[in-house]
């Protein structure tokens, strides 16, 4: 095939449009722009928080003021004016909702458009959903079913009200307030999020899910998720995100903390599809997220799976601290960047306990004029005898205007551990295309086939409901027509 035709097809393939770019007209209550102690007091008061929570926020804010924005990532974006952001926007609700019928129909419509109708999900899939719009948790379904098993799954504000002891015990125990610039910011202004506690020995019967959406213009979203899996428990948790199309950049700085005690297992899956900006790189979400889990007891397991297709800028390193002996950390990631998107994402695996194991599989796909970086750390401490890590990060380049980078940091401090790291960078080879063409598969389809095959290893790790969506997303991000 002549190369210019191939280029044309590639261009088509890599110039798909964002399909979640709608705005829902819902009355919202917004705080004035800007960030200062008054705004924090305002947020805290709106949420009727206890004194200790306000103190926590103010302490975080004071620490944040001392910190500098990190510059080390392979990202370029104009300086963020933190005083030009609305830190609190909530759908106006009069009363606490007790059933789905009380939810604003417009809001329901939004979730229908997202394809995650609470109603549908409730009936058909049995997934418990906590939907967070702008900053406030709208509805948690299936709370009653879960409560029977002693599982707590509710919005963060509810947890602060109803389970203050649990929240106080674990909040900021994995991601300390001063951990990094954006974590400190989040600790100061987080408005809502999800809280989840699985009691000892309970295997959560449903897949828990949160949906995040930024709706109001000029707002930042700062949600906070805390998952605690007590001894011998199991939970699979899913998170999805979308935002409407807007010209200005919006900020999203979330913190996710996971605590897995002895023999517990947490599986955390994300499909991140924030608005990535238009073809010329205007608009889009700045996504600065701190996600970290700790395997506190022996034989604990934390598994991160992420499909990153959205956001103008992504800065995200879901990590595992393997403190308990024999604990396991996993990280599976597909990151797709197109047009002017930039992603700097990866993981940290910190091995502290004996016989700890970790696996990292990262697949980066860059198209258009985007830059996609994998940045990872594998650290094997002195006492982490017989530990094992395997990392593989592959990059696929579509087109000659994009970039793919890898920054793996490996530190080993004992002799009995084995660390392996592999990385390759390649493009879709002419041989592969020729093979498909020869069997009657046209080039566009062939590219879709190859990209999906390339990411299969990670997509397979997603829960069923997400896997389908993720595959579609992967196609939308890259295609036009790739299926």
């Amino acid at each position, binding site marked *: 095939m002549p190369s210019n035709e191939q280029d044309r097809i590639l261009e088509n393939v890599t110039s798909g449009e964002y399909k979640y770019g709608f705005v829902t007209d819902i009355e919202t209550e917004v705080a004035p722009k800007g960030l200062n102690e008054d705004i924090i007091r305002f947020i805290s008061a709106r949420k009727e928080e206890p004194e200790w929570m306000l103190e926590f926020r103010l302490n975080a804010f004071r620490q944040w003021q001392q910190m500098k924005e990190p510059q*080390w990532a*392979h990202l370029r974006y104009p300086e963020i004016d933190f005083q030009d952001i609305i830190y609190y926007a909530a759908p106006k609700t009069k009363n606490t909702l007790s059933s789905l019928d009380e939810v604003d129909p417009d809001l329901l419509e939004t979730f229908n458009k997202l394809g995650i109708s609470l109603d549908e999900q409730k009936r058909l899939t049995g997934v418990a959903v906590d939907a967070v719009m702008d900053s406030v948790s709208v509805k948690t379904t299936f709370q009653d079913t879960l409560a029977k098993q002693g599982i707590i799954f509710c919005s963060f504000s509810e947890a602060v009200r109803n389970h203050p002891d649990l929240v106080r015990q674990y909040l900021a125990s994995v991601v300390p307030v001063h951990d990094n610039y954006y974590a400190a910011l989040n600790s100061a202004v987080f408005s809502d999020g999800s809280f989840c506690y699985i009691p000892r020995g309970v295997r959560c019967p449903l897949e828990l899910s949160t949906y995040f959406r930024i709706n109001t213009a000029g707002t930042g979203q700062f949600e906070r998720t805390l998952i605690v899996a007590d001894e011998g428990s199991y939970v699979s948790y899913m998170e999805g995100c979308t935002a409407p199309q807007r010209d200005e950049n919006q900020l999203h700085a979330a913190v996710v903390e996971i605590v897995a005690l002895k023999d517990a297992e947490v599986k955390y899956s994300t499909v991140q599809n924030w608005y990535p900006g238009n073809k010329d790189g205007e608009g889009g979400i700045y996504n600065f997220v701190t996600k970290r889990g700790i395997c506190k007891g022996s034989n604990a397991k934390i598994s991160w799976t992420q499909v990153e297709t959205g956001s103008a800028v992504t800065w995200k390193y879901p990590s595992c601290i393997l403190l308990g002996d024999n604990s396991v950390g996993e990280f599976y990631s597909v990151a797709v960047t197109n047009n002017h998107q930039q992603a700097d994402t990866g993981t940290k695996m910190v091995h502290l306990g004996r016989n700890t194991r970790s696996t990292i599989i990262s697949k980066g796909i860059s198209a258009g004029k985007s830059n996609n970086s994998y940045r990872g750390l594998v650290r*094997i401490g*002195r006492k982490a*005898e017989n530990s094992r890590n395997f990392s593989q990060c592959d*990059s696929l*380049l*579509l*087109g*000659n*205007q*994009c*970039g*793919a*980078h*890898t*920054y*793996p*940091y*490996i*530190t*080993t*401090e*004992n*002799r*009995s*551990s*084995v*660390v*392996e*790291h*592999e*990385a*390759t*960078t*390649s*493009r879709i080879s002419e041989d592969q295309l020729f093979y498909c063409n020869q069997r009657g598969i046209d080039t566009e389809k062939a590219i879709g086939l190859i990209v999906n095959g390339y990411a299969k290893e990670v997509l397979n790790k997603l829960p069923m409901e997400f896997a389908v969506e993720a595959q579609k997303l992967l196609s939308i991000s890259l295609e036009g027509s790739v299926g």
Partner: protein
Amino acid sequence: MDTIITDNSLKGKMITLFGENLRSNFSSDSEHIRSIRLQAIERFRELGFPSPTEEKWRSTNLGKTLMLEYVQHFAPLEKDIDVRKVFQCEVFDLDTILVAQYNGWLVNKGETLTSLPNGTVIGSLADAMRQYPEIFEKHYGKYADMQHDGLNALNTAFAQDGLFIYVPEGVTVEKPVQIINLIDLKENFFVQPRNLIVLEKGASLRLVHCDHSLRHKESLINNVSEFYVGEGAYLDHYKIQNKDNSSTLITTTFFHQERESRVSTNTIVLHGGVVRNNISVKLAGEYAEADILGLYLVDREQHVDTHVHVDHAVPHCTSNEMFKGILDDQASGVFNGHILVRREAQKTLAYQNNRNLLLTDKARIHTKPHLEIYADDVKCSHGATVGQLDPEAMFYLRTRGIGEHAARMLLMYAFAAEVIGKISIQALRERIDELVAKRLRGELTICDQCVIDCREKRPVSFDIDLSKI
């Protein structure tokens, strides 16, 4: 190693020293050299010495080294030294053109600049600066990037002597050139040698660069080398470092490669206190090829840090990196390999491999194989492993009646052999092979305490009954 120095007294001292020397020892410089010096000191004033807060120095802290008082000489102390009297080369049966650098100054039986019949010039950088200003104008300071590296800027500001080699178009230098860098002083010593090696179109050179110390006072060496490898030229370069525990050796080597040139560089660290090797290769002409190899064998408190930067600036170039390390006792190692493939550099092939063996629970390794790729039609891969000896290979040897100790030695030797096997100068390969075997048996460390006596030649032997294999 956790002191971070913010206000560096050595920095202030160096800037004062520069001012003093500008009027005395640097006063005979040409206008060109002078302007480079001034730019460099200005840059050093901004950058200063590297601190662990910089990404490139996060695992190597020079804090303690920089706090010491050092003696510096801006004019040679002894004029005529026969290097063979104070030092016998480890590669003694290697027939080379030998040049020696003694406490930073080139000494060569009284003659500092030698011209070979084929037009090749080998000798002192200081003399060459005066005699060949046109070569300096064309090449000197052109490849060494002092904008991002304070130590490099400092070297450029103070550079006085070092090795200069000029190989004219189409000339092959038959014998390998060997330079021995000796430090032999009773005081703490800071020296900054500077080398410039120019290979014109189609030229060919083999160069062996050895670093040694004879006495055991603290020494700090900040060495910068620039290599210009012209179109179709071939350079075979070896660096052998065998320093004592109290030395800090920092070498920064820049290779600038033109079209269809080939460079093979091999860095072998046998011993050293703190060793930092920066290797930077710029593939500036199409179809250029670079093989960048290295081996580090360290024990006790030693620290070896290797930073490799390969810049693929044009299409159709190939680079191949392979670094291996064996770390014993409390030794620590750092490997940082950066491959940059620029947008224009289509059809690039770039491979990188770093493999490490840790022998104790106190040894430590930081490795960062780093790819930065902006072109799509490329094949790039990197791999890094840290681990032990293959248990299956170990088991195989044990079942054949080989003792654990001997089996370990054999496997480590085989691990290192992959790098040593690539040395193309036979006498050197055999010698290094022997040194490595000695090193693995723990004998070289002892021997190293008296570097002067390396005469004894023993065949490599393992405590193994080969008939059983």
